[in-house]
């Protein structure tokens, strides 16, 4: 779509309704960081209740008013709202928009040498559908009955109850917005990667990050629509009184439910997990991509087994569609099915192991620079490893009997997405910040941020494995109701304190992020001496990206090539 008018775009066209992928990428990044902070804030409030179940939270009551507190005590419904919204915000409004909308939008077109996305206006639309979707979700805190409170998984029939409250309905509407945004984005990503690669950039010369974004886009494209269908059905259940997920003979609150019945609660779970398992890989793959970039750059040597990495990612993408029911072993699944899903789950662990091994082996023989992005990328490896390993007992139905729906599950997936993916996303921010702003972030503050984050993230999530093994169910407002919960309550307290300290540990990052805009050291095009195409553009790149169209001469990670005078040979530099 050609625009003729772009001579001197005003402020609004340039920074608000911009069609430049870089501005949109920054919009996504900033918005999703704010959402992450908000979601993190919800969690810190939850942790207060968890650590001190009978505590007096008058200071919180003064902030939040009577909707969530009575006489200084937090109400269970408020706790459930915090839980459901924490999950939703972190996954759908925080991590995915940051990893795909932010990094994908900003870096991917640069890395393939494109002047912009294939459909710049669609790109803008995608952001402007995402933002209202997020705001709709947040607005649900202010309606009667509060926000969605049935968990981020929103299992019916529970999520169909109380249709008079708008919270869950707004959640569903917001979800439809977010899904639409993701679909627009993923179409755009795939077309851009397939069509707009610059001359010489064959598929096997693509940076690993682009590959990760490519597969991620396919997952979003094909896995989200079933959730959209499920969302529409739940919306019908709540608004039009249908019974898609309401079986016969329901008696809710002592009264027979006034619905037709004949629905199936498990249908929602199937459709939900048909999305939500690929969604896990949507959270992980871009992170793996970022870590690959940072590691190659800071070991000054090629990634080990580039091709096996690519094949593993493709394989992961396919497999992620046929493992979803391992979230449902406890729903009364038959033997054949459970064996099938246990097997596929074990199979999908193999490419993950290959990727992690390749990344670790890439370190061998390098000349490792310990700068801030590298520190985050390096800590990603063992953290993601713990997340992956603790998935094993959950992927086997027999051991899942004891651990399903306990804190062990929470520990497991948080290790994958929080100390895992978030670490990688921080690495990405420190790594590409100079490209986006033309200035470095402060090294000292960065290291402070890194050590605090690493220590306290582990402090938050390791106690959860102990709680889980002790048999404490998840989503409990007060675990001391149970004997086995009482015994591990001190672990909960430790976890809560770590969470609050983790909040403090983010202060250096926030300072760094804003102060460096002004005070950071100015840099040229390629401060990290990197090889991929984004470093051929000026920092920050202008609208249209490259001053002259680059041509690609070699693979993405040609570091320390023997016989070369420099220890890096960029893709875009022709050498003899």
């Amino acid at each position, binding site marked *: 779509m050609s625009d003729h008018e772009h001579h001197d775009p005003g402020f609004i066209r340039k920074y608000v309704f911009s069609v430049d992928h870089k501005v949109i990428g920054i919009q996504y990044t900033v918005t999703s960081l704010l959402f992450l902070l908000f979601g993190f804030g919800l969690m810190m409030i939850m942790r207060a209740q968890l650590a001190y179940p009978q505590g007096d939270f008058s200071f919180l009551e003064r902030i939040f008013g009577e909707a969530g507190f009575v006489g200084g005590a937090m109400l269970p419904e408020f706790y459930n709202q915090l839980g459901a919204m924490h999950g939703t915000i972190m996954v759908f409004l925080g991590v995915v928009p940051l990893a795909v909308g932010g990094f994908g939008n900003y870096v991917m077109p640069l890395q393939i040498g494109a002047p912009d996305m294939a459909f710049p206006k669609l790109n803008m639309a995608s952001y402007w559908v995402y933002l209202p979707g997020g705001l709709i979700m947040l607005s649900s805190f202010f309606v009667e009955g509060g926000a969605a409170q049935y968990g981020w998984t929103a299992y019916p029939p529970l999520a169909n*109850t109380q249709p008079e409250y708008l919270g869950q309905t707004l959640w569903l509407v917001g979800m439809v917005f977010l899904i639409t945004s993701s679909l627009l984005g993923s179409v755009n990503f795939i077309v851009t990667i397939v069509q707009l690669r610059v001359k010489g950039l064959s598929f096997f010369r693509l940076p690993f990050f682009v590959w990760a974004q490519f597969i991620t886009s396919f997952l979003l494209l094909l896995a989200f629509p079933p959730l959209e269908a499920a969302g529409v059905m739940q919306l019908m259940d709540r608004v039009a009184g249908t019974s898609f997920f309401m079986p*016969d*003979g329901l008696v809710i609150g002592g009264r027979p439910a006034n619905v037709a019945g004949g629905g199936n*609660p498990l249908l929602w779970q199937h459709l939900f997990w048909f999305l939500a398992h690929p969604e896990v890989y949507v959270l992980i793959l871009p992170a793996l991509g970022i870590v690959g970039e940072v590691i190659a750059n800071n070991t*000054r040597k090629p990634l080990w087994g580039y091709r096996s990495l690519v094949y593993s990612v493709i394989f992961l993408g396919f497999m992620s569609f046929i493992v979803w029911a391992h979230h449902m072993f*406890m729903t009364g699944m038959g033997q054949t099915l459970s064996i099938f899903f246990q097997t596929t789950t074990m199979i999908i662990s193999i490419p993950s192991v290959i990727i992690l091994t390749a990344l670790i082996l890439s370190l061998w023989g390098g000349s490792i620079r310990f700068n801030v992005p590298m520190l985050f990328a390096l800590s990603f490896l063992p953290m993601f490893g713990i997340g992956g390993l603790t998935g*094993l007992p959950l992927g086997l139905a*027999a051991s899942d009997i004891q651990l399903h729906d306990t804190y062990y599950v929470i520990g497991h997936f948080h290790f994958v997405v929080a100390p895992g993916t978030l670490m990688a996303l921080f690495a990405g921010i420190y790594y590409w910040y100079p490209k986006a702003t033309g200035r470095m972030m402060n090294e000292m503050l960065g290291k402070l941020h890194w050590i605090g984050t690493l220590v306290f993230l582990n402090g938050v999530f390791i106690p959860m494995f102990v709680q889980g093994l002790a048999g404490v169910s998840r989503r409990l407002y007060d675990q001391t109701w149970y004997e086995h919960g009482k015994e591990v309550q001190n672990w909960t307290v430790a976890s809560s304190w770590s969470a609050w300290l983790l909040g403090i540990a983010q202060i250096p990052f926030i300072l760094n992020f804003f102060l460096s805009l002004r005070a950071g050291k100015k840099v040229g095009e390629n401060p990290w001496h990197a090889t991929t195409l984004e470093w051929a553009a000026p920092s920050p790149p202008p609208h249209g990206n490259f001053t002259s169209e680059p041509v690609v001469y070699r693979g993405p990670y040609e570091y320390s090539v023997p016989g070369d005078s420099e220890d890096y040979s960029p893709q875009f530099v022709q050498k003899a």
Partner: protein
Amino acid sequence: MDFTLLDGLMPKDISTHGYQIDRLLEYLHWFMLLIFIGWAIFLTYTLVKFRARQGHKASYDEIKAKPSKYAEIFVVAFELVLLVGLAVPTFAYVRTDFPGKDKNPVEIRVVAEQFQWNMHYPGEDGVFGKTRPDLVASDNLVGLDLSDPAAGDDFVVPTMHVPVDRPVVLQLSSKDVIHSFFIPVMRVKQDVIPGMSIPMWFEATETGEYQIACAQLCGNNHFRMSAQFYVDTEKDYAAFLAENAPGGDDEEEEEEEEDE
């Protein structure tokens, strides 16, 4: 194994099948620990040895990583053994190997609702009376149809009593939303799904007083949807049955309900 990883961490096991689950978990955690230590050693060594410093250059060539291949094969083999050798048979045993009539199992219907567990005992005749959702009322929590002759000796209590060393078969159903029936010490967990009746079995090996938990978010008071769980001697169990049989004194039953 004398030295175990998970002993102090997991609740005690008073079921006949639980050792299979615990064994699987134990092996898995050893495996995880082993792999993680392997990584940690490799990482530390590599990071020190190949740190950037004066006079040290990165090498362009990949290492020929035979060990990684072995490690991957080891991981796959281990997973395969666990899957085929332990996980699948254990799950099949727990889920399909129901005790036959010759073992004289105790049968109990469990009807979950927000936020309590109703234990429906069939009474002396061993046959559950019919239930209908439209008969549910505050004095008839499971909607028992008293016109059914089999319903006469049925009773419903909010706590579960089972005899020790005798298999128990539960029929789990829910009146409203999805719950999950979880007894940590018994190593059993089963989602309770409205519209379905899902059977489950276990056998206790030790008497005592324990707790049933709800493991699936079921509403505001999910956190206190617990029930007392008593494993009785045969004698105590018989006394419990006699005490609650209808026609005797109903007060006991009502008192316990109020405890909830």
